[in-house]
């Protein structure tokens, strides 16, 4: 198991945010974590990224507890994309992506940078200053930096992504999720991504984790997890779930419980 999360509890300021979550992530698996606002998705991811401490339980990466890894060693195997990264100083996009390659010489041209810029469609932005880029453009540049960090590293490789497509247009969302799936299936990355877009997750994720108020509601393949009952239970969302011939479910929301509009209409 690449990532083994065992009975993890996380408390912040005495308040339990994540309670008793266990799951595993294999190499080559793309798992999407879903759940309503405040369900503990980001907190869980931050704990796995080392930003927060586990209150109880343990998380093993490649068989070793995460806190037992030496930071430089871990950085070559695990890359993290936080929910928001603001760059207020005039660094160029290329400089930001280069930051993902700390071990490499700064002077020599690094072909990986250009490869990643092409993969994420940011070549045209290479020399633009970060504060002048749009939110979506910045997000793609940050994603390139995150990928650069473990690009070409030997296995194990783990990607932790917190809403990495939240500012992207639908075409780029598809591009990024397709890329993540490829990285998992063809290069053996383990990918754990927090997202809100149910259909994007259903279309590309190998498995989904549905969180509700800090604990696991369900986990498994998209068809199994994304049911009308589950959506109602977790989000209070009334939705119709249809199944595509390609094999993934599609969620068509129709409203929310107690929705004022519904009574008005």
């Amino acid at each position, binding site marked *: 198991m690449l990532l083994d999360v065992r009975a993890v509890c996380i408390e912040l300021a005495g308040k339990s945010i994540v309670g008793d979550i266990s799951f595993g992530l294999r190499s080559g698996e793309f798992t999407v974590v879903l759940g309503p606002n405040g369900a503990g998705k980001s907190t869980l991811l*931050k704990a796995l*990224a*080392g*930003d927060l401490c586990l209150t109880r339980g343990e998380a093993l990466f490649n068989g070793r507890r995460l806190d037992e890894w030496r*930071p*430089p*060693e*871990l*950085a*070559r195997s695990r*890359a*993290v994309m*936080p929910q928001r*990264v*603001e*760059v*207020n*100083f*005039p*660094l*160029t996009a290329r*400089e*930001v992506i280069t*930051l*993902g390659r*700390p071990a490499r010489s*700064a002077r020599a041209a690094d072909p990986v940078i250009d490869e990643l810029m092409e993969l994420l469609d940011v070549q045209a932005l*290479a*020399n*633009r*200053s970060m*504060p002048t880029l749009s939110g979506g453009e910045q997000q793609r540049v*940050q994603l390139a930096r995150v990928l650069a*960090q473990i690009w070409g590293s030997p296995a194990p490789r783990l990607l932790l992504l917190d809403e990495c497509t939240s500012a992207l247009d639908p075409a780029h969302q598809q591009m990024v999720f397709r890329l993540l799936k490829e990285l998992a299936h063809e290069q053996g990355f383990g990918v754990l991504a927090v997202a809100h877009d149910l259909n994007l997750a259903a279309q590309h994720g190998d498995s989904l984790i549905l969180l509700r108020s800090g604990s696991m509601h369900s986990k498994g393949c998209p068809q199994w997890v994304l049911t009308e009952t589950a959506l109602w239970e977790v989000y209070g969302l009334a939705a119709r779930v249809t199944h595509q011939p390609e094999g993934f479910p599609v969620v068509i929301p129709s409203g929310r419980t107690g929705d004022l509009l519904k009574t008005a209409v």
Partner: protein
Amino acid sequence: MLIDAAGRVSQGPALVVMSGLALAVALISLASGAYPLALVDILGLLGGQDSSDPVHHMVLFEVRMPRLLLGFLAGSVLAVSGAILQGLFRNPLADPGLIGVSAGAALAAITVIVLGGTVLSGWVDLLGRWALPLAAFAGGSGTVFLAWKIARRAGQTSVATLLLAGIAINAVAGAGTGLLTFYADDSELRSLTFWTMGSLGQASWDDLVVAGPWLLLALILAPLLARPLDAFLMGEQVVGHLGYSTLAVKRGAILIAGLGVGAAVAVTGLIGFVGLVVPHVVRQLLGASHRTVIPYSALAGGTLLVAADCIARVVVAPAELPIGLMMALIGGPCFLALLLRTRMV
């Protein structure tokens, strides 16, 4: 090409122009003052030629040279400390002066001057000529640490809190300085004025021996922080994700800034604006990566301070303006102009 693809001044030409400027300013600084020296004489003396006039030799090697070196080193260190603190706080306004570091260093130095004969005589006896610079150093690093602790709450560095903390620290240090001024006698008051306005007028080889190693150490160590400080521009968490020890980087940055500013304040007194204006201009011209900002700030900061010192001792010759005053006169309007011209973040 003078402008590169990112719309910045290319590094090659920038290095040539700035080194040339530094050299020119250095020569002017050696030549100008109450006792003018001809350029030919300076070059001759530097070349090892014996001068017919021993006064020339004395003025050049005992007065102008240490002053030039000390001014350049102090300017470099102040600018580099500014660059480091701005990276650490992710805020271009985090000048050593604004967050109270200089005031803290000066307060410590003034405390030693005024109380050195009485309450602190043990400290002075123990450390001798090191008592003052070490106190300034401790005052400087202590204040950076304090500002950092106050500005950081729940994993976030709050910019507003940082600046407010700086105002509070400056106020307290100012009150302490005022109180000590109240108790100081006449001769102590004269050295106090030197501290609060800044001056290179007393610069001697002794000062260089005391402060030089610390200033050089800060300059040598600062580039090691360049890459992690670049990561800091994206937030503290990203620093950790990239495999750097956040704590070590923070401690290193605080130590270098405290060490550098403390040592600089110890021998030159309070000189503001270098740490604020220089890194800002360098970033606008050459980009924000610390691998560029740190070395070029060092070069530009040294040049600026030496240039300001030249002007300070020429405009009202044979008297001298305090250089801290001079820097504020130059730096204030420059900074305002920048503020109006570019969008401040």
